[in-house]
């Protein structure tokens, strides 16, 4: 499978988002655009501020208040080990909206989703974390996070970028400067759960226009494994 195949697989996972609110909230809802989600709108009485959204596949997946949904638009900047911010509520929000193919994610929103997956890796403390960077400058910004993860846990960290770079060798940290065209076109991240399927997580996004990505995150073990396989194949 290629990255494009994986995006197509996710696009087939249909979801419905039913928004219940008494007043329109375009400042929140218009900022989310999806490929595989049907959005429906149902009115609530009065002028209550307590709007909420229900996510369904063929069954109820979960629900979220519209105010809480805003966190996803501008996630806080925090390292993956800061569990005062990247805590249970943060994780629950990302879990609710997994396998959704967003069409206009920005860098900050992808970083927010990445932090959730990296938090799982930090928490488990073992297993393999693979991260692909489109640009060396992006890798440079995140390098302190990954070197600390490698230093303070038993994680195996594999970092991919299309640029030539010779990092100082350190245990648990491997760099693949690769020439495959997909490395560099996609932002990807995967964590194999370190033996615990429930902790698996992955993210894949393609920058179609500057700072506008089509992408998704997932906690589906099969999809995470597929993404990891694809990354391994590309770099071998």
């Amino acid at each position, binding site marked *: 499978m290629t990255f494009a195949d994986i995006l197509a697989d996710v696009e087939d996972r249909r979801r419905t988002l*039913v928004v*219940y609110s008494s007043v329109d909230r375009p400042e929140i809802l218009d900022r989310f655009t999806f490929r595989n989600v049907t959005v429906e709108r*149902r*009115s*609530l*009485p*009065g*002028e*209550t*501020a*307590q*709007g*909420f*959204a*229900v996510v*369904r596949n063929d*069954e*109820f*997946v*979960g*629900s*979220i*208040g519209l*105010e*809480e949904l805003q966190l996803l638009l501008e996630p806080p900047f925090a390292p993956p080990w800061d569990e005062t911010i990247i805590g*249970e*509520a*943060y994780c*629950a*929000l990302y*879990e*609710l*909206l997994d396998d959704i193919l967003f069409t206009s994610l920005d860098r900050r929103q992808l970083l927010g989703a990445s932090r959730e997956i990296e938090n799982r890796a930090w928490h488990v403390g073992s297993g393999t974390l693979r991260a692909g960077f489109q640009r060396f400058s992006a890798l440079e910004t995140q390098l302190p996070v990954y070197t600390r993860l490698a230093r303070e846990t038993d994680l195996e960290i594999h970092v991919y970028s299309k640029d030539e770079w010779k990092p100082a060798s350190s245990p648990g940290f491997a760099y693949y400067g690769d020439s495959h065209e997909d490395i560099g076109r996609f932002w990807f991240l995967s964590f194999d759960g370190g033996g615990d399927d429930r902790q698996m997580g992955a993210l894949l996004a393609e920058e179609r226009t500057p700072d506008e990505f089509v992408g998704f995150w997932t906690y589906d073990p099969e999809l995470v494994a597929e993404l990891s396989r694809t990354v391994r194949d590309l770099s071998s």
Partner: protein
Amino acid sequence: MTVDDVCDHPVGRPDAVSDDVFTAMQHRHRRYTLYFLLEHDSTSLTELTDIVTGWTHVGEYGMVGRADWKRIYTTLLHQHLPMLEDADLLVFDRNEGSIERTEWSDPLFRIVRLTHNAETNVHAG
């Protein structure tokens, strides 16, 4: 006619809201069912479960999931909807899973609306 009958059915006040309504409104899930019916004449058991689950957990992020949904579905089906039907507030078709609001009197609408505004923090409504 006994004294109890008089109390249950106040003479000369056909619009009066029966005590059954107030009893029905003692439970949060039954109240939120009525709140939704302020706005919609009908719904389904599946949608109502989505609404009660989502609305009563607003502010808790995505902590509410499939297990909560199933629990709420079951109590709506076996407990709350029959009670609301007994209070003549709605008609529930178990086979179709459909729910229809009955003809509510103006005082009843007012009570449900007031309770809704108080409970959901409506500033103007």
